């Protein structure tokens, strides 16, 4: 018997529904999400649970068992809240396509905050540290200090492993509970900067360490810190990242300085639900690593995934995670990993969908959103929440102000997209367009009071005009700083 989903909400019916209702509801749902009708990857992930719900509810015995046991579970177990807000509740039918935004938010159970159950989550943490030649000097020193502080922070039952890599990987600390802190620190101190950068070697060794204690009750997390480009081994690294994502390991990447491959590290983090950070000075390493590890110790639910299945006539265009760490999400997979849900935080993601022209008036569904995750303190860890989003199609023009949260997110997201488009234009070789986009970005940043970033955009616009290219530093600054604008408006607070 499965208790990790609610068959009634899968089919969108009440617990008192008759067998005929169940049948009718299943046909409605199948029409919306069956792969024969709906090619969206999100729909494919929905249909399995919908069918399972249908089969369970048709079987009278199973349905009775489910009802009885579910009631008991609901009283003792935690859940998370899942809200989806539309940019418009009333949509006017038009003879052209139109865009609609949906803000999906996952919040921890309010009861869990007060309860005595609350405790620090147990960590299974692996640090993969670059000790190539370029890390020489302050950089490696700061990394060591940061690693020491992390060792100090760890609880006795937390599991830590540290792998260092250059052209090859070396296990500095084997995965185990943190007992003799002084000895572990001494081993970290012996790292010296030498050799080149080959990420795959280190990554694989780190994953091996993490896998030793990999368990659903733990926060299994790998942090990769590098300052250089890796050559030729991107493909195996990303495919390994995809594998470990299914095993329940999240990977966060930190790039130090200017010379690392941001797209590559972004990809690793995105497929596993981790985050990417840009640290432009060696001094920032300590704070970034510590903050990150601290956030892992306060987890309510792990391996949270969002899934969105738009109705057959509606297109999902893009997805962007706003909180806790802003980054673009990939919409090619049915389940989108978004990382861990902390006790006092929210996970929020913004989706952009396109509605077709000539919609029929009336109420209609637009998409089904689901959020799944493992609630660490629950007996039955897996939890799934469903949100079927509907809008009213009507000619009436109502003074329907879009939700402030969506507007605010979009005002910042637009800036991120502007720099993204400038870079895309550059990749196409369209220098004129790139310059124009950067200048527009700069103007907009000034109006929003982000003077430093505006100057950077302006400087990069000139750089592009002269050299047909962005500077490495400018490119990363614009990308990660416009991203971090999404964090409650303060650009400098979270970026070193």
């Amino acid at each position: 018997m499965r208790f990790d989903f609610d068959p009634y909400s899968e089919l969108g019916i009440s617990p008192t529904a008759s067998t005929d209702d169940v049948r009718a509801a299943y046909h409605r749902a199948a029409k919306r999400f069956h792969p024969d009708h709906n090619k969206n990857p999100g729909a494919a992930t929905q249909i399995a649970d919908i069918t399972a719900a249908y089969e369970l509810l048709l079987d009278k015995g199973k349905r009775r068992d489910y009802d009885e046991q579910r009631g008991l579970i609901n009283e003792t177990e935690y859940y998370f809240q899942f809200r989806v807000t539309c940019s418009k509740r009333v949509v006017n039918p038009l003879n052209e396509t139109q865009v609609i935004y949906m803000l999906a938010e996952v919040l921890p159970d309010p009861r869990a905050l007060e309860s005595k159950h609350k405790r620090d989550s147990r960590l299974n943490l692996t640090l993969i540290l670059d000790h190539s030649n370029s890390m020489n000097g302050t950089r490696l020193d700061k990394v060591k200090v940061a690693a020491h502080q992390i060792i100090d922070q760890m609880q006795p039952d937390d599991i830590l492993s540290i792998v260092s890599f250059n052209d090859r990987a070396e296990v500095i600390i084997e995965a185990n509970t943190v007992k003799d802190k002084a000895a572990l620190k001494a081993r970290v101190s012996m790292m010296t900067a030498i050799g080149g950068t080959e990420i795959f070697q280190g990554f694989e060794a780190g994953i091996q360490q993490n896998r030793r204690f990999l368990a659903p009750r733990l926060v299994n997390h790998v942090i990769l810190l590098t300052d250089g480009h890796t050559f030729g081994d991107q493909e195996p690294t990303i495919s390994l990242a995809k594998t470990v994502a299914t095993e329940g390991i999240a990977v966060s990447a930190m790039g130090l300085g200017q010379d690392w491959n941001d797209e590559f590290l972004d990809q690793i983090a995105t497929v596993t639900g981790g985050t990417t950070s840009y640290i432009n000075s060696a001094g920032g390493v300590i704070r970034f690593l510590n903050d990150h590890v601290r956030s892992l110790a306060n987890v309510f639910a792990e391996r949270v995934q969002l899934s969105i299945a738009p109705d057959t006539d509606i297109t999902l265009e893009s997805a962007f995670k706003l909180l806790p760490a802003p980054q673009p999400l990939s919409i090619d997979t049915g389940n989108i990993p978004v990382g861990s849900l902390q006790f006092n935080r929210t996970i929020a993601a913004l989706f952009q969908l396109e509605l077709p022209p000539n919609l029929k008036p009336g109420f209609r569904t637009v998409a089904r959103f689901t959020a799944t995750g493992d609630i660490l303190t629950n007996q039955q860890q897996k939890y799934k929440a469903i949100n079927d989003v509907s809008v009213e199609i009507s000619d009436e023009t109502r003074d329907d102000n879009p939700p402030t949260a969506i507007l605010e997110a979009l005002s910042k997201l637009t800036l991120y997209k502007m720099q993204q488009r400038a870079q895309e234009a550059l990749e196409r070789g369209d220098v004129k367009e790139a310059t124009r986009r950067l200048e527009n970005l700069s103007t907009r940043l000034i109006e929003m009071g982000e003077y430093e970033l505006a100057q950077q955009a302006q400087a990069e616009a000139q750089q592009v005009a002269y050299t047909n290219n962005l500077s490495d530093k400018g490119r990363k600054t614009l990308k990660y700083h416009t991203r971090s604008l999404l964090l409650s408006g303060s650009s400098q607070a979270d970026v070193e």
Partner: protein
Amino acid sequence: MKLCPYCAYQNREGYFYCEECGHRLVGDGANATLPTKKFDVLTNQFARSTSWGTAYFADQSLIVLHVRDAAEPITLRPQRRTILGRYDSSSVQKPDLDLTPYGALEKGVSRIHAEIQRNDETLTIQDMGSANGTHLNGQRLIPEQPRVLRDGDEIQLGKLIAHVYFKSGSAPL
């Protein structure tokens, strides 16, 4: 389609921010191509409408500059390049129009603050990298980027606010 009031880019319906220039397309900001001008008593007699004035600047025209809170307007015949700023005995370059008598020092006007350039039949204004910036009709200018100056425009150098009017004819200075 939704036309951006700032850059005239055609956005898809449903967008809240222009894809091209990033300006807000809906709500309060949507129609505000220019902020409503505020005229003080002295300049009020010149206020005919809040729409854009002409950009045409004839051969013999003059600029009349009404600095807010100043008793007398400044009249000047623009050269190819006219630098507005604040004269300082220690600075090498003297601005073409010294705003010191109008409280430039207290109002944060830079020594070389902004420049009015004369083109064939138009004027442009650009910020010269001033410390406190130059605003044209409430919008901050990007340094070194010229913008067209029109009859009736409001310029702000630091905290010094002035209105620009074009005066035709060859009246003596």
